[in-house]
């Protein structure tokens, strides 16, 4: 079943099961090596639950309970932004209030699921990006001004980590010479861990996720260097023991930072990690300028190899002939189609008699590399056979052609 089909089936299942019970709505998603459910609630925004990767449980849930906002000198506010109420349409998602799509970026495949909520003059997009190789980027984009004064948003993610099940998890902090387990519930500046590195690990199975600051711009870099340190310095991390009574979204005002710190033992327990980001907005930038921040979760599971339909060792996303073995990736005219699958010599979009004539005119010559389809240094009968086999077809397919 296609991803779209699975999505539709999920919503149908949700519709059948939600008539009287949960206000939240849920639907299962299976994509690449991921499975998860999602809900939109008015207490935790867009929430993904029962998150597994390669058949291993990573998270019980990942949600966005609150974004607190403070204006300089309290000129207005403070405010509490709780997402998931009346959602707004997303233009590029066919005006759906829930964006779901997959895309390729930097040779990697991603799944995106997000909601848009307008709270006061704030216009907020809350989103999760899941990569095919085991990364989750939980991200928030925000714009708008309640009053013309500098202010800071503090977005909060609640990460209920269940590595291979709820028990035996521990939160670790990078000390610069290794990771040390946190013994009891704690509140900490995120940069008290060198290299921005926090980790949650199952003490029995060794399954772990690294918790890093999210990407700064929205090119989703494929590395751990993400937010500028200046921006990261004000992020905070909170470790908590899971309690059902504390699993109820945000029921506090703006002046409460993550509560529930009772000093309880969290070493090899069922733990919850809260991550509070830092999102400053200067009034001089105006209401229309958006800002973003996030948190990145990376599992230590070996990622599955990227799709490579022709088995030539070049992943489809970067292969200029996805269905023809061409490890050399020779593309002499630089149009994004490798020579081996590019017999469209006049670039009119299809291999036709004009291309045949062009190849015939260059027969025996080494002066026309674009017509040397197999790259053996000369236009010969092998190239003619290749052209014939592609007759009437477009060039490609290619993973890199415009």
């Amino acid at each position: 079943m296609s991803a779209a089909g699975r999505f539709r089936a999920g919503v149908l299942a949700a519709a059948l099961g939600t008539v009287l019970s949960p206000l939240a709505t849920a639907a299962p998603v299976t994509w690449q090596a991921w499975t998860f459910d999602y809900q939109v609630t008015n207490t935790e925004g867009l929430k993904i639950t029962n998150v597994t990767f390669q058949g291993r449980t990573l998270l019980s849930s990942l949600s966005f309970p609150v974004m607190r906002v403070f204006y300089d000198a309290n000129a207005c506010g403070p405010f509490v932004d709780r997402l998931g109420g009346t959602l707004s349409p997303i233009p590029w998602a066919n005006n759906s209030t829930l964006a779901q799509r997959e895309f390729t970026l930097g040779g990697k495949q991603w799944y995106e699921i997000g909601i848009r909520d307008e709270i006061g003059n704030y216009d907020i997009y809350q989103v999760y990006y899941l990569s095919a190789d085991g990364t989750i980027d939980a991200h928030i984009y925000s714009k708008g001004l309640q009053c013309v004064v500098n202010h800071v948003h503090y977005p909060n993610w609640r990460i209920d980590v269940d590595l291979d099940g709820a028990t035996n998890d521990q939160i670790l902090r990078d000390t610069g010479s290794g990771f040390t387990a946190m013994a009891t519930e704690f509140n900490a500046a995120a940069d008290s861990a060198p290299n921005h590195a926090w980790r949650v690990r199952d003490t029995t199975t060794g399954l772990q996720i690294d918790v890093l600051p999210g990407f700064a711009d929205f090119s989703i870099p494929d590395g751990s260097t993400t937010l500028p340190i200046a921006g990261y310095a004000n992020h905070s991390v909170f470790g908590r023991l899971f309690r059902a009574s504390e699993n109820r979204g945000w029921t506090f005002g703006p002046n409460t930072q993550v509560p529930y710190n009772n000093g309880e033992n969290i070493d090899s327990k069922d733990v919850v990690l809260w991550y509070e980001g830092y999102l400053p907005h200067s009034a001089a930038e105006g209401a229309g300028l958006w800002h973003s921040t996030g948190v990145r979760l990376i599992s230590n599971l070996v990622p599955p190899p990227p799709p490579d339909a022709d088995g030539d060792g070049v992943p489809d996303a970067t292969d200029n002939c996805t269905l023809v073995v061409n490890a050399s990736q020779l593309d002499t005219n630089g149009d994004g189609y490798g020579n081996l699958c590019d017999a469209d010599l006049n670039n009119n979009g299809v291999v036709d008699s004009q291309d045949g004539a062009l190849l015939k005119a260059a027969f025996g010559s080494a002066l026309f590399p674009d017509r040397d389809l197999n790259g053996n240094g000369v236009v010969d009968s092998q190239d003619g056979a290749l052209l014939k086999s592609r007759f009437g077809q477009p060039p490609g397919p290619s993973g890199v052609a415009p």
Partner: protein
Amino acid sequence: MQAHSRLPHRARLLLLALPSVVLLSVALALNARGESPVDPATVEVGHPTGHLHDHADQTWPPQPRGLRNVVPLSNPGNAERVTELRRRARAERERIALARPEVRQALGKRYNRPDVVESGAKDGTGAATSRLLYFSYANNTTVEVTLDNNQVRGVRRIRATDYQPDVTDEEITAAEVIARAYFEARNTERVSALKAYGILAYLPEGTGFYPTRVIYLSFHAAADAPPEFAAWVDLTSQRVLRIREERS
């Protein structure tokens, strides 16, 4: 601009206390942070550089730059059905709650549409329990109705200063009506051309909750334009507490 002359006494006291709160915040900001997380309630906020994005050619909501091979999976029809299911589930719970006389008594004649909070164990055993959180303007109190398997299990009044549910669309509309009438009565014609945006108002100290139900409204020429006017509207007393003309 002047605060409304008929401001409730408690609200006037709060406004008088604001300057000292600001001074206290600045003083606390001088404390060394150490390993404690930043607490915005006690630290003056800063605006580091290096945070600006290149927004050229971007849409809203933003899309990752350079993405390719996009396969849309959204389905507006499904999203609408999900929204309708949420509305029906909420309405059913409201019906169950309002059928009980003790709930109606706690709410009085004027109250908002409730916020709904669900909690529970991760195995789903708590999924049948939920709380409806109303704000009663008539009694100026938050009213919590606990439902267990669609049965009312408890009704509790919570002081407005201890907790208030999130604001509803209907409350924003009601606050806007009051504010526009206020501006109109003072010949502030510019406001009539502006769009209003509403959000629950909070205080910068204590729990942050006002002693009454206060909505903050900002008035903009467009969504991406800065606010030109602001108003604090008390839905408990149905009065404007304060207005301000913004200076860009």
